[in-house]
C-alpha cells in the first residue's frame, strides 16, 4: 500500500484494498519519472562530471537513471559537452531516433550556448537548442554533479506534467 497511497488524486482506495482506479497518464508518467534512462552523449569535459555523477559517490542509479548506449532505449538525452558543426547532424539524428516521450538536458555552457567557444570559433555550434528542443538547461563549466542531479530532478518534474496525447502523432512537430 506504500506506493498506492502516494498516487495522485485520481486514486480510489476501495475498502479492503486491492483495487485502484487511476488514469493511465498518471501511472505512466509516475513510473517514467522513476526510471529515466538517459542516452550517454559525452562530447567534452562535461562528460567527466557526468561520469562522476554516475559513479558511486553521487550515484545516478538511485534516481532510477541508467545510461543506455542506444537512443531507442532512452527517455532522456544528456548532451554533455561541446557540439561542433560536424557533430550537429549526428546529435539531431540520435534525437530523431529516440522514442517519444523524449527529453533533452543541455549540460554546461557549451551545450547551452557555445560557452567559451562563442566568439572567434569556426567549428562550435552555439547551443544545441539551434537543432533540437531542450527541456532543461544546467549551466556551469562544467556543472558539478549536484547541479546535474538537480537538473535531472527538474526533468522528472516536467515529465510528470506531460500528457500522453502531447506525444502522439504529428502534433509533436509543433513542439
Amino acid at each position, binding site marked *: 500500500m506504500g506506493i498506492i497511497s502516494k498516487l495522485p488524486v485520481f486514486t480510489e482506495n476501495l475498502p479492503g484494498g486491492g483495487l485502484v482506479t487511476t488514469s493511465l497518464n498518471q501511472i505512466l508518467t509516475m513510473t517514467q519519472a522513476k526510471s529515466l534512462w538517459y542516452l550517454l552523449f559525452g562530447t567534452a569535459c562535461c562528460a567527466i562530471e557526468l561520469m562522476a555523477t554516475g559513479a558511486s559517490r553521487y550515484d545516478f542509479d538511485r534516481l532510477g537513471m541508467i545510461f543506455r548506449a542506444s537512443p531507442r532505449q532512452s527517455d532522456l538525452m544528456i548532451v554533455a559537452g561541446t557540439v561542433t*558543426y*560536424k557533430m550537429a547532424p549526428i546529435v539531431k539524428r540520435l534525437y530523431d531516433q529516440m522514442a517519444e516521450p523524449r527529453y533533452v538536458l543541455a549540460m554546461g555552457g557549451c551545450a547551452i550556448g557555445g560557452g567559451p567557444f562563442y566568439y*572567434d*570559433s*569556426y567549428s562550435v555550434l552555439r547551443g544545441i537548442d539551434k537543432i533540437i528542443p531542450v527541456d532543461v538547461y544546467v549551466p556551469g563549466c562544467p556543472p558539478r554533479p549536484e547541479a546535474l542531479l538537480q537538473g535531472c530532478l527538474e526533468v522528472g518534474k516536467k515529465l510528470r506534467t506531460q500528457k500522453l496525447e502531447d506525444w502522439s502523432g504529428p502534433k509533436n512537430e509543433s513542439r
Partner: protein
Amino acid sequence: MNPAELTAYITSNFSGQLETVENDQAEPYFIVPLSDLVPFSKFIHDDPQLELNYLMNMAGVDTGEQFEVVLNPCSLVNMQRLFFKVVLDRGDPKFDTVSNLWAAANWYEREIWELYGFEITGHPNLKRFLLPDDWDDGFPLRKGWVGKNVIPLPEK
C-alpha cells in the same frame, strides 16, 4: 649525442644548405630550404647515427608574414629529437609529402591541408577529416580569416 654534437653532426654531414637557429631549448632547431625538405628528412630518417624514425609532431604555421611547416622528429633508438621548419611561398604554398618516410605525417599533412590550405604534392590520401565534409568556407587557421559562422570578439 647532446644537442651541440647533434647540430654539428647534421650540419657537417648533410649536403644541402641548413640554417641553425640558436635557442635555449634542449633540441637543435634548423631552417631547411623548401627544396631540401624531402632530402633532409630522408637523411635524418635513414642515417644510422641519427635514425629519427618517429615523427612526434608536424604543424603548419601562419605568422602573418609567412607560411611555415614545423616538423618534430625523434629517434626511439637513440632517444634524441630535433625541430626543423621550412618556409613556404606565400603566394603558392606547396610542399612535398614526407608521409612515405614517417607514416604519422599522413594525418598531420591532411590536417595542414585542411586547415591551412597548403598544397601537398604526392600525398596518398588528401581527404577531410576535421571539418564537415561539405565545408566550403576557406582555411580557418590562416591569419585574418573570417568565416561565415565566426562571431568576432567585441571591442573592449
